[in-house]
């Protein structure tokens, strides 16, 4: 459904030195699948996700969604940042309704707001302001805000990275439930191997400098049911080995320590 064909994105610093954030990356994301992007810090995961969102443009290569070129951001591709980036002057329900307001469909679709509040498990917090919410609750709002537009794909950039372990597991379950209830395609960037296995159909492992996709691992349904099951543990070992090959320093990276 989303095709990334041979794209490169190079940043130049102030003295003109290039950083090859992505070099000749290709990836095909299937309709309705859950794909995780995992890799060492600075390998270009955010860059790739922003390109798919249309928030940035590649120097070369093609980006397609349903065979149309991706040129600019669109409500078809919802995006959730690591810091929820909620509008602090809007309540939970107003934040979630932004997509409807922006597209002038608020009048007809008002009734969706409470539905999505329920979907992300925030019933009773409709009138709260962001500063009254915990980090996990803010991410729930950010996810609902992206979902209310019924996007073809939901792009999540480490949405759980800043949360404590307990909240993270809770939200992983919520994301899994949302995925099965809405059937939308999800691309998740994460540092956490367990999270990737637990949630995804496929895991794309990236390498740094230049940023590339080195390997795609298929996750069978059985392996992802239970974190203590042998299949899960084997898959985790395999992924970690690949990651060690991908970047020698991965063991030091935030998130990996807890995953091992």
């Amino acid at each position, binding site marked *: 459904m989303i095709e990334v064909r041979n794209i490169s994105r190079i940043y130049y610093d102030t003295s003109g030195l290039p950083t090859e954030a992505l070099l000749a990356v290709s990836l095909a994301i299937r309709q309705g699948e859950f794909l995780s992007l995992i890799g060492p810090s600075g390998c270009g995961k955010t860059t790739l996700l922003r390109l798919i*969102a249309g928030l940035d443009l590649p120097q070369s290569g093609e980006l397609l969604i349903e065979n149309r070129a991706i040129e600019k951001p669109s409500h078809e591709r919802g995006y959730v940042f690591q810091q929820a980036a909620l*509008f602090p*002057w809007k309540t939970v329900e107003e934040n979630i309704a932004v997509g409807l*307001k922006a597209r002038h469909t608020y009048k007809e679709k008002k009734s969706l707001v409470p539905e999505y509040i329920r979907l992300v498990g925030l019933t009773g917090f409709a009138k709260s302001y962001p*500063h009254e919410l915990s980090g996990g609750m803010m991410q729930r709002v950010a996810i609902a805000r992206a979902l209310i537009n019924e996007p073809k794909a939901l792009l999540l950039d480490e949405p759980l990275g800043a949360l404590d372990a307990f909240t993270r597991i809770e939200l992983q379950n919520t994301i899994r439930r949302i995925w099965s209830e809405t059937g939308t395609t999800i691309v998740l960037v994460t540092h956490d191997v367990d999270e990737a296995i637990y949630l995804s159909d496929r895991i794309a492992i990236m390498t740094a400098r230049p940023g590339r996709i080195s390997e795609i691992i298929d996750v069978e349904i059985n392996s992802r049911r239970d974190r203590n099951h042998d299949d899960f543990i084997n898959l985790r070992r395999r992924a970690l080995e690949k990651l060690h090959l991908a970047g020698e320093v991965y063991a030091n990276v935030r998130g990996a320590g807890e995953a091992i």
Partner: protein
Amino acid sequence: MNPKRSANKKYWKPKSKRWLAAAILSPAAAVAASALVPNVQAVNTLYYRTALVAFLAALLVLWTMRRFRNRLYHYSQFIAAAGLALTVLDLLTTKSNILKLPFFPGPTQIVEVLYTERAMLFVCTVYSLRLFFAGLACGVILGVATGVMTGWNRQWNYWLFPVLKIIGVIPPVAWIPLALVVFPTSFYAGIFLLALASWFSIAFMVAGGIASTPKAYFEVSRTLGASERFLLFHVAIPNAVPSIFTGIATSAGMCFMTLVITEMIGAKAGLGWYINWAKAWASYDKVYASILIMGAAFCIILGVINLFRNYFLRWQK
């Protein structure tokens, strides 16, 4: 941190019996001094003493109401000091003529004037407040409009920013001669000068608020299907609302100053005009009375601005 100390951040010493006693005794002392010490100057002490007694009665009534009790404690140091100051002033003026008339009328005489001139003072206060809020409202509208244009649009920024910077440093009262000629009445001239006084600081703050909108807000909005128009009206401008209020708060003092000076120089009404008029008659008691009212009026102005601020910024911590 000591939980007892952190428990009440809002009120200072909300349990101090000693200061409360002082707050009741010192106005009472002022009453006693006024009643018992014989007058040297020829004044009517009735109004002054009535005011003090009414004030004491109000304190006692507030004391019986639970929700005002903390506040009463909070202000008791002030009240005690004010009562003491009144007693001393009264003794130095009305009771001994050490500070001489007409330049230093005592509190007795000022209170008398506040009462006997109440109709005139009321009209002048209303006139000044009307001019103040009309001028500030124009300044806010202009300031927000130019601030938004400066912060949002490069082309506008190119022209407006230097203009704001140059005109902004000129004290608004410097325009008084021009304003009095150009505008048909001193009221419109006043509005112009007050708008000028608040325009620039509000415009600067708003431009800053617009320009400092986090990029993530714009990016998120774009992925939600927002148009440029939506980004301006639903993201950038709401993000600048706190700056609007900072601009208003910082320019309120300048506005008030401009108001009084404008009234003193060009107007036919208002507290500034009244001061000038009273001075011409050497009625310094009236001058001090209107200065007192100015202080109170500015407190009310700040209170009103704060009410608006709290309403519009209720989403902040």
